[in-house]
C-alpha cells in the first residue's frame, strides 16, 4: 500500500524522535513518525499490580530477548559481555529508563584535544547549552542548581527527597571528602505540564503508572500531536528507499498484520537508537548503496559504545529506604574528569542507588550464593531486607571500530527483517577505569558501614546506552553524519539518536541525546528558512 507523501518522515518515537517531531511541528510541514511499538497505557505498568516485581522478568523485562513482545526485535549478543536492553513503543527506551538525567560535561566534547584519545566532537557544550535548557523545560527535570561538577544550570523543579538512603550516602561521602549532589532527574517533583508529582512508587525502570517519570510519550508527544504531527504505531520500517538522484524517497514498513506499506517523504530522519539505526541503514541496500545507505565511509555500525556498568553493593545494619522512592536521585562526579595518576584517561559517574524490591533482592542474593536455602534463609533475608546501598560506576567507553553492529545472517524478526548482531569487547582503558570504580565504590560502602559487599562488573544486562554507530564529524571518510546530523552521502537523510555520538562520556545519555535532537531540528529550520537544507 502506498500513502500520501509527507514532508518529514521520522522513524522511531523515542527520546530523539519525539523531541525532533515537537520542534519541527512549528514549521507546519506535514510530519509523520513511524513507530514499531504501541502506546503504553498508565494502567499497563507493573506497579498497578501485586505481580509488579515478577513482571520485570516477563513482559517488562529490560532485555528484549527475554521480554520478546511482538513489537520487539531479537538481538544476537551471544558473544558480548554486555547485553543490549531497550524498549520498543511510543517513547522508546525512555519508557524503561531510570530517568537519571545528567548532561555531558564540556570536556566530553573535546577528548582528543584534552586527552589525546578518540576524536573531538564537531559541536560543543556551549553550542548545546540553550538546547539543554529547552529540553529540561520540555521534559520536566528535578534537581538542584549549583553543582560544582557542572557549569551552572537551573533545573525547573526541586530535587527528589534525600531519604534515609541519601543520608547514609551523604555522611559517607562527606567522611571521604568526595563530591556528591542531587541528580538531575527526569521526574516531576511538583505538578508539571499537566503531570502529577512523584509518589515514590518504587523502581522507575518498568514505567511510571503515576506519569511522574518524564518518558517521551508524556512529555514531547502530547505537544507534538496537538501541533499536528501524526504518530503511526505498529509500523516497523524495513528499509529506507532511494531514487535515481541518490536522495531518500521514503520508507517501506510492515503494519501489525504484516502488510507491506510504502511511505513516501521529502526527507527522512532516523531515530532508532544506536542498535536500531545501523540495523536499518545496513538493511537499506540498493544499487547505489550496496553496503547500506549512507555507508560510503564503511562506519555504519562501527564504533559501538556502551557504558560498561560496575555495580557494587552492601548492606547496612538499620533499615533504610529499600525499594521505595526513585532508585536514582544522587550522583558523584568525583572521578569524572581525567587524572592520569589513576592509570587511565577520562572517567566515570557514580550513581548512588536506593535498594531493590523484596523479590529482586532475594533473587539477586540467591544468584550470588549469599541467601541460603533451608531454615537459615529467613534470618539471612531479614539481615539484608531494606538495608541495601548500591553504587554504579558508569564508565566512559572509547570508540573502537571492532566494536560493532552488523546484520545477523540467520536471526530475523517476526517480519523477516535481519536482526542486529553485536560484536563487542571492553577496551583496556575501560577495564582500568572499571576496576577503579569498583574500588572507590567499596571505599564508600565501607565508610557507610556496609557489610556483605558484592558486585557485578561489568553488569551483563546493562547495555542501556547505545552510542557511536553512525558517528558525526566533518570528514565524510571518518564519519557518517555531518555536524548537524545530515548524512554525508544522502542530503535528505538525517540521524539524530545516540548513534551520532563521537565519544560516550560517562553519564546517562538521554538528556544530551534530546538536546542534540533539538539542536539538529534548529539547524534544519534555519536551513529551511534559507532554502539551503538540501545543498
Amino acid at each position, binding site marked *: 500500500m502506498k500513502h500520501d507523501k509527507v514532508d518529514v518522515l521520522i522513524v522511531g518515537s523515542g527520546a530523539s524522535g519525539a523531541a525532533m517531531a515537537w520542534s519541527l511541528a512549528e514549521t507546519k510541514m506535514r510530519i509523520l513518525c513511524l513507530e514499531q511499538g504501541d502506546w503504553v497505557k498508565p494502567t499497563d505498568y507493573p*506497579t*498497578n*499490580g*501485586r*505481580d*509488579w*516485581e*515478577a513482571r520485570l*522478568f*516477563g513482559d517488562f523485562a529490560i532485555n528484549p530477548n*527475554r521480554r*520478546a513482545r511482538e513489537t520487539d526485535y531479537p538481538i544476537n549478543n551471544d558473544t558480548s559481555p554486555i547485553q543490549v536492553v531497550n524498549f520498543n513503543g511510543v517513547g522508546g527506551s525512555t519508557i524503561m529508563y531510570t530517568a537519571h538525567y545528567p548532561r555531558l560535561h*564540556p*570536556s566530553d566534547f*573535546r577528548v582528543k584535544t*584534552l586527552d589525546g584519545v578518540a576524536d573531538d566532537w564537531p559541536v560543543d*557544550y556551549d553550542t548545546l547549552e540553550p538546547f539543554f535548557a529547552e529540553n529540561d523545560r520540555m521534559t520536566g527535570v528535578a534537581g*538542584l542548581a*549549583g553543582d*560544582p*561538577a*557542572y*557549569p551552572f544550570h537551573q533545573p525547573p523543579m526541586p530535587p527528589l*527527597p*534525600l*531519604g*534515609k538512603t*541519601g*543520608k547514609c550516602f*551523604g*555522611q559517607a*561521602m*562527606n567522611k571521604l571528602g568526595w*563530591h*556528591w*549532589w542531587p541528580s538531575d532527574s527526569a521526574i516531576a517533583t511538583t505538578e508539571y505540564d499537566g503531570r502529577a508529582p512523584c*509518589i*515514590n*512508587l*518504587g523502581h522507575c525502570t518498568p514505567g511510571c*503508572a*503515576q506519569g511522574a517519570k518524564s518518558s517521551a510519550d508524556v512529555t514531547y508527544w502530547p505537544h507534538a500531536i496537538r501541533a499536528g504531527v501524526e504518530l503511526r504505531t505498529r509500523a516497523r520500517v524495513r528499509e529506507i528507499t532511494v531514487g535515481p538522484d541518490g536522495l531518500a524517497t521514503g520508507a517501506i514498513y510492515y503494519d501489525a498484520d504484516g502488510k507491506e506499506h510504502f511511505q513516501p517523504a521529502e526527507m527522512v530522519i532516523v531515530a532508532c537508537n544506536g542498535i536500531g539505526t545501523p540495523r536499518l541503514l545496513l538493511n537499506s541496500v540498493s544499487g547505489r548503496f550496496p553496503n547500506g545507505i549512507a555507508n560510503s565511509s564503511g562506519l555504519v555500525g562501527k564504533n559501538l559504545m556502551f557504558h560498561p556498568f560496575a555495580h557494587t553493593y552492601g548492606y547496612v545494619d538499620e533499615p533504610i*529506604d529499600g525499594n*521505595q*522512592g526513585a532508585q536514582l536521585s544522587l550522583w558523584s*562526579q568525583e572521578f569524572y*574528569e*581525567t587524572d592520569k595518576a589513576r592509570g587511565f584517561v577520562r572517567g566515570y559517574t557514580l550513581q548512588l542507588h536506593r535498594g531493590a524490591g*523484596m*523479590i529482586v533482592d*532475594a*533473587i539477586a542474593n*540467591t*544468584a550470588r550464593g549469599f541467601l541460603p*536455602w*533451608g*531454615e537459615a*534463609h*529467613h534470618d539471612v533475608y*531479614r539481615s539484608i531486607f531494606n538495608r541495601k546501598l548500591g553504587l554504579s560506576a558508569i564508565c566512559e567507553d572509547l570508540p573502537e571500530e571492532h566494536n560493532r553492529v552488523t546484520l545477523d545472517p540467520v536471526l530475523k524478526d517476526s517480519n523477516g527483517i535481519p536482526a542486529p548482531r553485536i560484536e563487542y569487547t571492553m577496551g583496556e582503558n575501560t577495564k582500568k577505569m572499571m576496576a577503579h570504580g569498583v574500588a572507590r565504590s567499596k571505599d564508600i560502602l565501607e565508610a557507610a558501614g556496609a557489610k556483605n559487599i558484592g558486585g557485578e562488573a561489568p553488569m551483563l544486562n546493562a547495555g542501556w546506552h547505545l552510542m557511536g554507530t553512525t558517528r558525526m564529524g566533518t570528514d565524510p571518510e571518518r564519519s557518517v553524519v555531518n555536524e548537524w546530523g545530515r548524512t554525508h552521502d544522502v542530503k535528505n537523510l538525517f540521524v539524530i539518536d545516540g548513534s551520532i555520538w563521537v565519544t560516550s562520556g560517562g553519564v546517562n545519555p538521554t538528556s544530551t541525546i534530546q538536546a542534540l535532537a533539538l539542536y539538529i531540528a534548529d539547524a534544519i529550520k534555519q536551513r529551511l528558512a534559507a532554502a539551503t537544507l538540501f545543498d
Partner: protein
Amino acid sequence: MLSSQETNDLRAFAGAMIPASARHGVPGADDDKIFADILSSLDRDLNDVRAALKRLAGIADIAADGRLKKANAFRAEGGPSVVAIARAVLQCYYRDDRVMRALGQEPRSPFPKGHVIEQGDWSLLDPVKKRAPFWRKVPQ
C-alpha cells in the same frame, strides 16, 4: 503444564528451599496458596523449570532432611535452570500477604498509594556547596 510427579517434586523443592518458620511467623514456599501461585506463574520459565525438575527428580520421595541436601547439591552445580526455578519460587513467596506482613510490609501494589520518603537532612550537602567548581575547562 507439569506432570503430577513434576508437581510433587517442585512442591518438595519449594518447601526445602524456604521452609515454614514458626519463629518468624511465616509459611513455607510449599504452602497451598503460595504453591498454587507458583504453579500458575511459571509462564516463560516453564521449560527451564522442567529442566530443573529433571535434575531434582524424586526429591518428593525422600525424607525431609534429605531434600535440602539434594536441593543444595543441585544449586552447587548451577546453570540457568537453577536461576529459573529459584526465581519461580521467590517471586511468589515474597508477594504472599502473610510473608509481606511478617516483614512489616503492606500487602498491596505500589500504585496508587505510593510511599513516603522523608526529605532528609539537606544540611549534609553544605560541605559540597562550599567546594569550588571543578569541571574541566575547555580551551576555546
